[in-house]
C-alpha cells in the first residue's frame, strides 16, 4: 500500500507539471454559466446492461430526441452496469455532483440499493428531472391454472397455508413488495420464489412451477393474447388501456395496493433551477412526440408525466414503501 501511495504521489507530481506545461487542458467540469447551456454533449448513464428495460427506455427516448432535434447537443448513452446499478448511480451522483451534463434513469434498485446498504447514493443525492411513465405490473397464472380470479386464488391460499407459491424477479423488487403487501392485506400465508429475471419468471408461471407470478405487460402481453397466460390483476391505480383493459386492478379486488415502476430521468444533485427547467422542457417535448407515445403504448406503459417537484415526492413515497417491506424480506 505504501508503495502505491508513493507511486501515486509521483504520478500526481508529473500530472501537475504536465498540466502547467500544456496549459489548462484538464479544466474541471464545474457547473457552467447558464446562458449558453448546453454547450457540450450530455452523457446519459444507463446503470444496467444493454437490452434491458431501462436500456430500451433510454435508447428509445434519446433516439426520439435526436430524430426531432430537441437537443442542440447530442445525448451519448453509456452503459455502466454492475452493483445492481449502484456503480452507475454513484458515478453520476458522487463523481459528477452538480454537473448538468450527467443524466441517468431510475429502477427499483434505485430505492432498494441504499436501504439494504448496497449503494452509497440514495434518491436524495439526485435532482429529479422528470418522470415520463410507469410500468404496470401484472399478477398472472398459467392458462391451465384452475384459478379464474384473484379472489379464488387467495381463498385457496387461506385454506391451504404455505402451499401457494409466487414467482417474481429477485428478492428485492417491485414484485417482492407487491407480494408481501398482498400477503399482509389478504392474511393468506404464501411462498415467494425469487428468480433471476422476467424470462425465468415467465417459464415458472407457464410451466406451473409456481402457482402464480409477476411480470410486466410488455413481457406478458404476447402470451396473454395467445391464451397461454391469464392476468388476474394489475398493480396500477387505474386499469391499463388497450388490449389489457379487462384486467381488474388490485384496488378493485379489494386490496389497497398500488405498486408500479416509475421511469424517468435524474441528474446529480446541485443543479441550478434554470438547468432543471431546461431539461424538464426538453424531455417533456420528447414525451409529446407521436413516436414516443407509440413506444409507450406498444410497451403497455402508462404515460404519467411528473415534473421535478412531483417526481421527487414520488421517490420519497417509493422509498418509504420499500423501507417498510424490506424488514419482511430481510428476515
Amino acid at each position: 500500500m505504501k508503495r502505491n501511495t508513493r507511486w501515486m504521489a509521483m504520478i500526481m507530481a508529473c500530472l501537475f507539471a504536465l498540466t502547467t506545461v500544456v496549459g489548462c487542458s484538464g479544466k474541471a467540469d464545474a457547473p457552467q454559466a447558464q446562458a449558453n447551456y448546453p454547450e457540450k454533449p450530455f452523457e446519459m448513464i444507463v446503470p444496467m446492461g444493454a437490452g434491458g428495460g431501462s436500456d430500451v427506455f433510454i435508447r428509445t427516448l434519446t433516439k426520439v430526441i435526436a430524430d426531432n432535434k430537441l437537443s442542440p447537443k447530442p445525448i451519448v448513452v453509456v452503459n455502466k452496469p454492475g452493483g445492481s446499478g449502484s456503480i452507475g448511480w454513484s458515478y453520476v451522483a458522487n463523481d459528477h455532483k452538480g454537473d448538468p451534463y450527467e443524466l441517468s434513469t431510475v429502477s427499483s434498485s434505485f430505492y432498494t440499493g441504499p436501504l439494504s446498504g448496497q449503494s452509497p447514493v440514495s434518491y436524495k443525492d439526485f435532482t429529479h428531472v422528470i418522470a415520463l411513465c410507469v410500468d404496470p405490473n401484472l399478477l398472472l397464472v398459467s392458462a391451465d391454472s384452475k384459478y379464474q380470479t384473484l379472489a379464488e386464488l387467495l381463498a385457496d391460499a387461506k385454506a391451504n397455508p404455505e402451499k401457494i407459491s409466487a414467482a417474481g424477479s429477485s428478492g428485492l423488487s417491485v414484485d417482492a413488495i407487491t407480494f408481501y403487501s398482498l400477503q399482509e392485506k389478504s392474511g393468506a400465508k404464501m411462498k415467494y420464489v425469487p428468480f433471476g429475471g422476467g424470462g425465468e419468471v415467465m417459464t415458472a408461471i407457464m410451466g406451473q412451477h409456481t402457482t402464480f407470478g409477476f411480470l410486466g405487460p410488455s413481457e406478458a402481453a404476447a402470451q396473454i393474447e395467445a391464451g397461454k397466460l391469464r392476468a388476474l390483476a394489475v398493480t396500477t391505480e387505474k386499469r391499463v388501456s388497450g388490449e389489457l383493459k379487462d384486467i381488474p386492478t388490485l384496488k378493485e379486488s379489494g386490496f389497497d395496493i398500488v405498486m408500479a415502476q416509475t421511469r424517468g430521468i435524474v441528474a446529480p444533485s446541485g443543479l441550478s433551477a434554470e438547468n432543471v427547467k431546461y431539461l424538464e422542457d426538453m424531455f417533456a417535448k420528447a414525451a409529446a412526440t407521436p413516436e414516443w407515445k407509440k413506444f409507450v403504448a406498444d410497451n403497455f406503459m402508462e404515460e404519467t408525466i411528473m415534473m421535478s417537484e412531483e417526481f421527487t415526492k414520488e421517490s420519497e413515497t417509493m422509498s418509504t414503501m420499500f423501507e417498510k417491506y424490506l424488514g419482511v424480506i430481510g428476515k
Partner: protein
Amino acid sequence: MRIANRIVSFLIILSGLFLTFQSSNLDYMVDGTPGPGFMPYWLGISIALVAFIPAVKTFTKFASKLANPFKAGDFTNFFIVIGSSTLVMIITPVTGLLVALGLMVGVIAKLMGTQSWKTVIGLTVCTPVLLFGIFVKVLSVPLPKGIFGF
C-alpha cells in the same frame, strides 16, 4: 515440490475454514429452506477436507515422482507481465488506458527478448492506434482518457 504442495494445501485448508467461518454470518436456513449461508458453509468444509489429499500424498511414495515445477527462470515472465500490467492499472488514471497499454506492450516485448528497438517502438505506437481503431472507433467503448485527451 513436497514442500510447495504442503504449503499450498495448508493455505487452501485455511481459506476453506475461513470461508466456513465467514459464512456463519449469513443465514444458514431461512424458513426451513437453504439460506445464503448454506452453500458457502459446506463448500468451505469440503474445500478444507479435499485439500488434505494432495498434502497427504506428499508423504507417500507417489511424491518422489513429482518434479519440481519451479525452475529458476520461471518467474521472469511472471514479473514482467504481471508487473507491467499492474503498472497499467496505476498509470491509467493519468495517461489514459491506450497510452498505458502501448507502454506495456513495449515493455513486455523488450523484456521478453525482442532485440530490435525499432520493433519495440513500432509496437508501442501501433498497438494503441490499432486498439483505438477497433475499440473506440468501431465498438465505441468509452475508454478512460488521460491528460493527453485520449
